[in-house]
């Protein structure tokens, strides 16, 4: 295995140029280095002007999503040596406006997140003095997977629908809506269903499952979408075939 590797890193500096260009950097490639270590090496030792986001370096803060050789990845959880002998292309996530270099604008997701009401909705809140809501391990398992989302945006970057139609609420937001819908403590499913069905993007989803494939946390947003569709089909049937039962 060679001990060096070349990174082709996308550069976009709106004040200087309107086009994206690529800079090549030759880096050491010890086996424990992840793509993020390479970028930090560039920033500290070679070119201080490179911009990207990162923080935890342990795959949990969700900051460091980017394309590595065209695939959406967490830069801190992707070994450089897996791409030896290189070169490796590093670009900002697809389907988002780019602010600078590898940094994308994600305000759109943040507003969608608020829209799906990602909090416990209840008719009557239990007072603290009555203790916890009981929830068995089985009930926890119902929604647990959907609660693991780190908002890393890899699924949006992989989603063909979102690429065509940015109004589509998108995989992670739907998974998070389901995370609350399926929580035994929550009573807000009906409100959230309404929000999800405002836009028909969800029906365009063809279950290619690209979102689930790229998700680093096994959230399975495609599964969440699938469940949503089944649920709303049932509601639809109820509404037409059994108008009374639906009310």
């Amino acid at each position, binding site marked *: 295995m060679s001990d060096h590797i070349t990174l082709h890193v996308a550069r976009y500096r709106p*004040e200087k140029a309107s086009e994206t260009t690529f800079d090549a950097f030759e880096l050491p490639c010890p086996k424990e280095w992840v793509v993020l270590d390479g970028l930090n090496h560039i920033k500290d030792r070679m070119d201080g002007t490179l911009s990207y986001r990162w*923080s*935890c370096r342990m*795959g*949990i803060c969700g900051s460091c999503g980017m394309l590595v050789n065209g695939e959406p990845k967490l830069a801190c959880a992707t070994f450089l040596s897996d791409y030896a002998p290189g070169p490796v292309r590093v670009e900002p996530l697809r389907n988002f406006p780019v602010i600078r270099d590898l940094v994308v604008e994600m305000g759109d997701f943040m507003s969608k997140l608020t829209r799906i009401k990602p909090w416990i909705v209840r008719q009557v809140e239990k007072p603290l003095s009555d203790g*916890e809501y*009981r929830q068995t391990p089985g009930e926890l398992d119902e929604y647990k997977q959907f609660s693991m989302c780190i908002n890393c945006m890899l699924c949006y970057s992989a989603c063909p629908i979102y690429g065509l139609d940015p109004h589509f609420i998108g995989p992670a937001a739907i998974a*998070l809506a389901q995370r609350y819908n399926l929580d035994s403590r929550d009573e807000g499913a009906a409100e959230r269903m309404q929000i999800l069905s405002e836009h028909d993007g969800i029906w365009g989803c063809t279950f290619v499952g690209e979102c689930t494939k790229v998700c680093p946390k096994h959230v399975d947003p495609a599964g969440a979408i699938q469940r949503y569709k089944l649920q709303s089909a049932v509601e639809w049937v109820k509404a037409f075939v059994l108008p009374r039962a639906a009310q």
Partner: protein
Amino acid sequence: MTPAFDVVLVGGGGAGLRAAIALAEASQRLRIAVVSKVYPMRSHTVSAEGGAAGVISPDDSLDEHCYDTISGGDWLGDQDAIEAFVREAPQELLRLEHWGCPWSREADGRVAVRPFGGMRKMRTWFAADKTGFHMLHTLFQTSLKYTTVVRYDEWFVTKFLVDDGRVQGVIALELATGRIEAITARAVIVCTGGCGKVFPFTTNAAIKTGDGMALAYRAGAPLKDMEFVQYHPTGLPFTGILITEAARSEGGYLINKDGYRYLQDYALGTPQPKPVLRTMELGPRDRLSQAFMKELDKGRTTDTPYGPVVFLDLRHLGEQLINRRLPFVRELCMKYQNIDPVKELIPVRPVVHYMMGGVHTDINGATPLPGLYAAGEVACVSINGANRLGSNSLPELLVFGARAGRAAADYVAGAKDPGTTVVAQLQDEQRRLEADLLQQRGRERIADIRQEMQLTVEESAGIYRTGASLIRSAAKLRELQERARDFRIEDDSRTFNTERIAALELSFMLDVAEAIVTSALRREESRGAHQRTDFPLRDDQRYLAHSLVQRQPDGSCRVDYLPVTITRWPPAERVYGEAPSDERSHYVARGAIPSGEGV
């Protein structure tokens, strides 16, 4: 002038978000801003793994949690604060349950608790081994329902606005655009977390650069107990990724290169097959990290390219338990170390983890500077004393975040509006951040100064310290402060300029490093995480006191002392491995794997 907000929160981690919700609930009329240099759900609270302590079991009591915290902190914690903390922690954790936190459960649906280091009863609530992640996302998502909370995501605070002896807001820089604004307010609550990045090898994320400590210090607030830096005994070499203490509370062993459970040689009890609370692997972190250094001296550690290591052995726990209760540990080992803990030993070494010290506050989060509050790891109330117990920090964020929020809500009701000097302060700061920093073409690389700072701090203020090395280090830090005036910043762009941010963070860290080293030099005793080889004993006569560092006009630090508040637990010896004999039957725990089917 009318301020833009009633309260500005600096920081959107666990403490900041809890404070924001407390304010929003205090009154719908309060205008609240949360300013955070990263999107709130990226804050470092997200990486906490193990759990959050709060008494709920029938066989547990508030007094026992108090005692564990006090003795764990080597009697430096303020006992009035600890009593309030212990009393309110269960309520706060329960509130989070009502907000949707996916706590792990017993078979009957009650919240499950696990044992944790230094705690004599099982009282640590957990959400598998991603407790901080779930707490932070629950808090953040819940905060979204309060429309009076305005967020400044990816805005970096560079300065506190101080006039007339009061804090009246902050100056902040928007990363995306480079815009610089004064965000005025009647009060500011600083919740910026810790400063692990002052050290070379740390579990802390890149953003933990002590900004709030330096901001408060520069504004005139004292920093307390800065010499107390916690090493966690089990970090992965190279990355510093933390292997949570939960791995030991579930029954993991620490062994040296000979396969020997070496903790038995350091007054931590005798090895048992099952974990026993407050003994061996479940001793407190300072003792475990110190034991590692002794093993190193004896040549019983194993060398790796990333320094000497010992091993954490989980193999006997079996795949099923590891998957169920420690899935993230397995994931981290496999993904970042290429090791499967089901079959292999995990190499570990002590790693800088947590800052006991911080901005001096009272029991309500108020600093001596009017209008300035602090909560979370950035603050020092102090409940952690000379050594924090694992799983006390997450509940601390909640208890004192909520307290600071409520106290600030009361304060702003009677506070004056900001004065007019704000405009001038903004102009000065704009000049510094733009004319100076963007045009700076000096000789020194940020990364070089950062590295030199980290090495000197580790060398002098690591697990063991001596007067001579601390004096050397203090001089070195003065030199680095000078050299840092001559930065080279290559990036002159206003758009998402992370190099300018790195320069600002480094200058914050240099101030924090000086405070740590100076306080460590002045404390001529050994207590908790502060171990002086030239003063190996605890000295209650002189140092049963908090150190307070105050910045002087010339930039140097002055250290004073403040007595510790003792209520019901007079200073005594810290005993681990076995409880004092009269209490023995009461305190020695049963086999510690909880029976519940929690995840």
